[in-house]
């Protein structure tokens, strides 16, 4: 279970998170919505300990992430897969080596036969052809393929939690749908708990069991998609309004 209690984060004079309370139960897929620049990615980075809160607590499975020692944090991160917005693939390594780095167990990482088998398996899971993509470098991949390789790397270590940072941003609707379908399928097949940061309302409604809206440094509402649709909260209505008017969303 992931819990954020009263998390505050400032960058200089700018208060990005101003007392955020947010929680994710085991087995859930939660989409964290909000306009660009509201601190969604900052919140996600708090969960994995890449950013420490100025105040408040980030608790994952009962452990306060900001109080973990360096070694504990390194071990803790092995149970979390993080999918970065633009893939964050290592451009000096080919796809095989990139995905192999996701195998967090040191012995398995060093076992070349296991690594080859596991990398092939997860690349197939994200609907890519291993023989075709494994020898390629990130610069040779399309945006959608890079995102999928990023997902493959995140799941290679069989994590308990998957954190997606804008998995569909910058993609055309067809590729965005493919990624949304992939997220849903991985949640079911791998049984992971997922948090997806997005400003794509349509995708969030398709993928998530529960939604949360971040606005002006606070989570203003958490609930099921149905509760969101029925909500009278002005921020929720304002955020959803554009997509309600969109016929494809209404459908």
């Amino acid at each position, binding site marked *: 279970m992931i819990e954020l209690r009263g998390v505050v984060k400032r960058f200089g004079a700018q208060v990005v998170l101003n007392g955020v309370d947010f929680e994710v139960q085991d087995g859930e897929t939660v989409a964290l919505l909000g306009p660009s620049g509201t601190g969604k990615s900052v919140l996600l980075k708090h969960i994995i300990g890449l950013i420490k809160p100025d105040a408040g607590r980030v608790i994952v499975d009962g452990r306060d992430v900001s109080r973990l020692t360096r070694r504990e944090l*390194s071990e803790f991160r092995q149970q979390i897969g993080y999918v*970065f*917005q633009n893939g*964050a693939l290592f451009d000096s390594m080919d796809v095989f080596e990139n995905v192999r780095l996701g195998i967090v167990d040191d012995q398995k990482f060093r076992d070349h036969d296991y690594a080859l088998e596991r990398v092939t398996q997860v690349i197939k899971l994200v609907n890519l052809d291993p023989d075709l993509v494994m020898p390629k470098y990130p610069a040779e991949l399309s945006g959608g393929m890079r995102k999928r390789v990023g997902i493959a790397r995140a799941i290679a270590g069989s994590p308990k939690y998957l954190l997606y940072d804008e998995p569909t941003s910058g993609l055309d609707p067809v590729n965005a749908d493919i990624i949304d379908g992939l997220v849903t399928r991985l949640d079911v097949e791998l049984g992971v708990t997922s948090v997806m940061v997005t400003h794509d309302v349509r995708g969030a409604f398709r993928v998530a069991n529960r939604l949360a809206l971040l606005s002006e440094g606070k989570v203003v509402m958490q609930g099921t998609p149905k509760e969101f649709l029925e909500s009278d909260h002005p921020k929720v209505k304002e955020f959803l309004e554009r997509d309600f008017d969109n016929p494809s969303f209404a459908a």
Partner: protein
Amino acid sequence: MPASTQTFDIRQRIGRGTLGAAAQVGRLTFFMGEAVRGLREVRIWWPRMMTEAWNIGAGSLFIVLLISAFAGAVTALQTGYQFTGSIPYYVVGTLVVSSIILELGPVLTALILAGRIGARYAAELGTMRVTEQIDALESLGRSPASHLVLPRVIAGFIMIPALTVFANLSGIIAGWLSVKAVLPVTDADFIYGAQYYYRPFDAYYSITKAFFFAGAITIISCYMGFNTKQGAEGVGKATTTAVVASSILILVLDTVLTRLLLNQ
């Protein structure tokens, strides 16, 4: 503006500058501490260090040899021009060897490599920072110090002194050949002069300086790259700062080491 406001403003600036400098020193100390901790992960940094060492050595050898050869040749020709008729010709050998080994070899090599390697390290790590590749490594529970910093720093500590040895040889040989071409200096004169004031400590001093310069170049540029902010502009800024800061540090270290090691 009233004088009191001006004074206040200056005090504020000094205060901010001091705090900023102290914060940089603190961050640099933590950064180096991280790198030292990463030394245990030999299996991680060793293969990458070998690749980096090859890149530094093979990639920089030509430019280092070329520039030190010109420096040696010019030193020899100017020495010959200034001393003609007043001092024996073998002194040219003494001056060329001493100038190259004690000063020009290590300092020129370091300044060339500050531009070549320092800029590359800062730009590579800076790009990795702004494209979240360093965050990605951390998110996988892996140490960026042992994957990215140590291979570069250790490769620098090995290859920069080695390149300095080649630079010294290149400078001396070029000086020897060029002085022979324009002055009536025999090989025997040059060798006699070269050996007359030469002390084995000079070579040790040259390598010691190169070792310190390697630290200045690699640590500063990795640190700058690692702490890059604000996209492409930040990468450019980090790269420039890395080259300027390491070049200044090389010159400061040159003075300090000369004072300490030569007791001058």
